[in-house]
Structure formats: C-alpha cells, structure tokens
C-alpha cells in the first residue's frame, strides 16, 4: 500500500492577504483583491486592472543582498516556503536535510527580470546585461532558492505547465513521498507577471477581462457576463509529509492529500478539448488514485478562470465525470476574489481547499449575478457556506492542454 501523505503547514502570498488567517478570512467574506494596475503604466493597455500583492516586503523573509538577486516570483516562493515551515513547526536543522525536498514551479518565470534586462540590452548593449539575469529569470529558480534559503537537500525540481504548474507540483511531490524518496516536501507554485509583456500578450489572446471601470467585479467565474480572467500574482507553498513522519514528530495535520490525476488534451494551444474531456479524465484519475468514488466528493475548488471557454468546458467536464452527482456537489472559484495566479494558482487554491476541509466552510464564487444556461451547477454563489466536506478536488487546467487535479480529504486515522 502507498504511503499516506498529509499537509502539515501552509504559506501564502496573495492579493487578498499574505498570511493564512488574513487570506482565509477574506476568502470566506468575499473580499476582492482586484484593482487598477500600479506596477507599470497600463494606460495604453486594453486591460488596466489586476490582482496585485500590496502587502509584501521581501526583507521580512530575507536580507537585502538576497532579495536583490531574486525576481519577485522567487521572493514570493521563499517567503511562502518559510511561512509554511513555521506553520508546520518544522525545523530542517533538526531533520535529515537529505529527506526534505522542494517541488515549486512557476508557469512563466522571471518575465519582469527578462523585460528589464532586455531593455538594458536594447539601450546599452550586451555588455551591460546583468550576471544575475539568467539565474534570476529561469523558472526553476524558485525551487533552487527555497533549498538554498532553507537548507533542504532532498529531491528538488519544478513543474512548468502554465496554469497547471502549482497542482502538478503538489501532485508530483505527493508521489515522491509515496514512493519513499523523501519524508517532507515543500510543494506549490509561484508567479509574478503583472508586467507590460504579459498583459500585452494575454490581451492579444483576448484572455483578460477589460472591465476596467469595475475592477472588483471583473473576475466573475461562471457568471453569464464574464469577459476574461484577471491576472493575479502570489505564491502558495504547502508542507507535505508522509503520515508516519508527521505522527512521529507530533505535527498538526491539516488535511490528507489522497489522490493525484493528470492528463493531456492533445487538442489545441489555448482552447479546452471538446466537452472538457481532458479535465474529466484528470478528475476521475485523481478520485481513483485516492481510492474514492465520484459520489464521495463534496466540493470542487474549480479552475474557474472567468473566461468564456474555461468555465463552460470545466462545467461540462464536471458533468461528464460525475453524472448525477455533479448537481449534488458544491463548486466554487476562488479566482473570483484573488484573480488567476497562473503557475501559483494550484498552490494557493490547494490551500483554499485544505482550509475548506479543515474549517468545514466552502469559500464562495463572488460576482455571481447572472446565471449562464451553460454553467448551471452549484457554484456557492456570493456567500460562503457551512457544509460537511469530507473529500474535495482542486483543478488546474493549463494552456497546452495540461490538466491536473488533486484530491484532498479530511484526516481520519
């Protein structure tokens, strides 16, 4: 039998709070983290809004010299990992560091650094490009720096699968623990791309909301009047441990990571496969991997981006995977509040899902005003709901047709 894997600590940097209690309180009271873009002058852009992290000071987590050598997406990951270790009361110096690993990805990487250095290159030539350009920009550096900053010497890698990155990272980390290659993994995703090229690029795809006059209402997953996603930034890192290791050190267990499923659409660069069949397969695989039946799932933290296609096809995917049970389970999109964190989405949403299991409260989908006949399930509209939640899924679906789902459940010994 596979080793059981549990969550014993969590760290979050998000547009609705950069500690777990602020994040959760805002999540269940329906607070939006969306506002006008302040990180660059967006006046010429079709989209002038985003969900920015406004309460983050890297010097709370590292010294100035280290902070200077990290892109913001790496700073977020290091901060979230340190926060998660503290939450788990795990001191790596007291562990065998070779048995503590890191699996933290980013969907895009250091685009901000890339844009700054490319500008320097264009203006001043190749000799002025910083020696820190490559090590700051590469997407794996979040995992690299987390190990450097914490001393974790076990398995170390990162997924890069667009908006599925965070969930792939957690699922792959779970499998590393199940097969016995480590006792503890710091796992999750990080992203910070509220930059001119990212906003211009997603605008060119017509993927972003342009509801510039009502930023708080722009992210409206499953609502008929949705018009695209709102870009967010942040990081979510979870401490995953084998159950044996967690029990041996008397750790508080938040929830169990019971299953992991993934699939590829083999269909299109950006559009979901017809009927959302790829997402269906990922969900069913996660349920099977967890040793559960579809009827056991009480809640799905949806990918729910607020784009026309995602929300329609994810709804179809849930109907196809669950049959009649699709109308009995509850679904919500936390992106309605903190936007789409791209490669960090799966990390932060796994935290939201784990907290829903721990607190037995479902976070809502805010801005749900006008029902869409194509999205006709229970999306926990506008108000959080107390409800028994025994098992839940968290979905992440990425450009390229990457589908990843993790199944979490309440911990029972």
């Amino acid at each position, binding site marked *: 039998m596979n080793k059981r894997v549990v969550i014993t600590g969590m760290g979050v940097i998000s547009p609705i709070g950069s500690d777990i209690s602020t994040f959760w309180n805002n999540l269940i009271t329906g607070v939006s983290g969306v506002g006008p873009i302040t990180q660059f002058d967006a006046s010429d852009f079709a989209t002038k809004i985003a969900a920015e992290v406004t309460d983050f000071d890297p010097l709370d987590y590292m*010294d*100035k*010299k*280290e902070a*200077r*050598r990290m892109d913001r997406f790496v700073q977020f990951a290091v901060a979230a990992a340190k926060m998660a270790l503290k939450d788990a009361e795990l001191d790596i110096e007291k562990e065998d560091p070779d048995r503590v690993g890191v699996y933290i990805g980013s969907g895009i990487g250091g685009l901000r650094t890339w844009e700054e250095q490319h500008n320097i290159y264009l203006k001043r030539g190749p000799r*002025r490009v*910083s*020696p*820190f350009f490559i*090590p700051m920009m590469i997407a794996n550096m979040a995992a690299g720096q987390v190990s450097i900053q914490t001393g974790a010497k076990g398995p170390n890698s990162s997924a890069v699968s667009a908006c599925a990155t965070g969930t792939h990272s957690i699922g792959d980390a779970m499998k590393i623990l199940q097969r016995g290659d480590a006792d503890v993994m710091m796992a999750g995703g990080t992203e910070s791309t509220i930059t001119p090229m990212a906003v211009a690029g997603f605008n060119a795809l017509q993927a972003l909301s342009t509801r510039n006059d009502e930023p708080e209402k722009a992210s409206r997953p499953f609502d008929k009047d949705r018009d695209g996603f709102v870009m967010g930034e942040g990081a979510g890192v979870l401490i995953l441990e084998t159950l044996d290791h967690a029990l041996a050190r008397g750790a508080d267990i938040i929830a169990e990571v019971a299953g992991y499923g993934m699939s590829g659409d083999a269909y299109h660069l950006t559009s979901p496969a017809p009927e959302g069949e790829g997402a269906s397969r990922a969900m069913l695989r996660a349920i099977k991997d967890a040793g559960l039946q579809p009827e056991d799932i009480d809640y799905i933290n949806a990918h729910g981006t607020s784009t026309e296609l995602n929300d329609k096809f994810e709804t179809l995917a849930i109907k196809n995977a669950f049959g009649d049970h699709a109308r009995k389970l509850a679904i919500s999109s936390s992106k309605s509040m903190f936007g789409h964190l791209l490669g960090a989405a799966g990390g932060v949403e796994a935290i939201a899902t784990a907290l829903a299991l721990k607190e037995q409260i479902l976070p809502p989908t805010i801005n749900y005003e006008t029902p869409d006949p194509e999205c006709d399930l229970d999306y926990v509209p506008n108000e959080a709901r107390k409800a028994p939640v025994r098992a839940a899924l968290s979905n992440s679906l990425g450009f390229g047709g990457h589908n990843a789902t993790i199944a979490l459940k309440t911990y029972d010994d």
Partner: protein
Amino acid sequence: MADTLERVQRIIVDHLGVDPSEVTPEASIKDDLGADSLAVMDLIMELEDEFQMEISDEQAEKINTVGDVVNYIESRS
C-alpha cells in the same frame, strides 16, 4: 580620494548588504565582505557605470580589497 572611497563604499553597501563600517580600504571584497563571483561581476558593472569607465576582465581579476578598487579608479581618472 575620500570622495572616490565614499562612492565605492556606498555601492558595495548597497550591493552586498554589508554594514558600512565593514567596508574599510583593507577589506577583501570576496573574503571579508562575502561577495561571490556573480556579485563581483555585478559590482564591477555598477562601478563602470558610476565612474564612467571600462574595467577589463584582467584588471577585475587583480582587484582584491576595497582599497584596490579605489586606487584603480583614481589611477584612471
């Protein structure tokens, strides 16, 4: 001299995150101030900008202490 030393000290403090009192003319940039090879290259680029000069790779390799930097800049200006 004092002016050059102050400007060099300010850049080193900013880049290496060290206490200003540590940045004495005798301090070794690598051994005492903790700069790795990337930090040294970054520092050289910043000094080239600050003092509007080019420092060759060969010359950069000869620089050990804060005083070496100041002397080199003084000799070139």
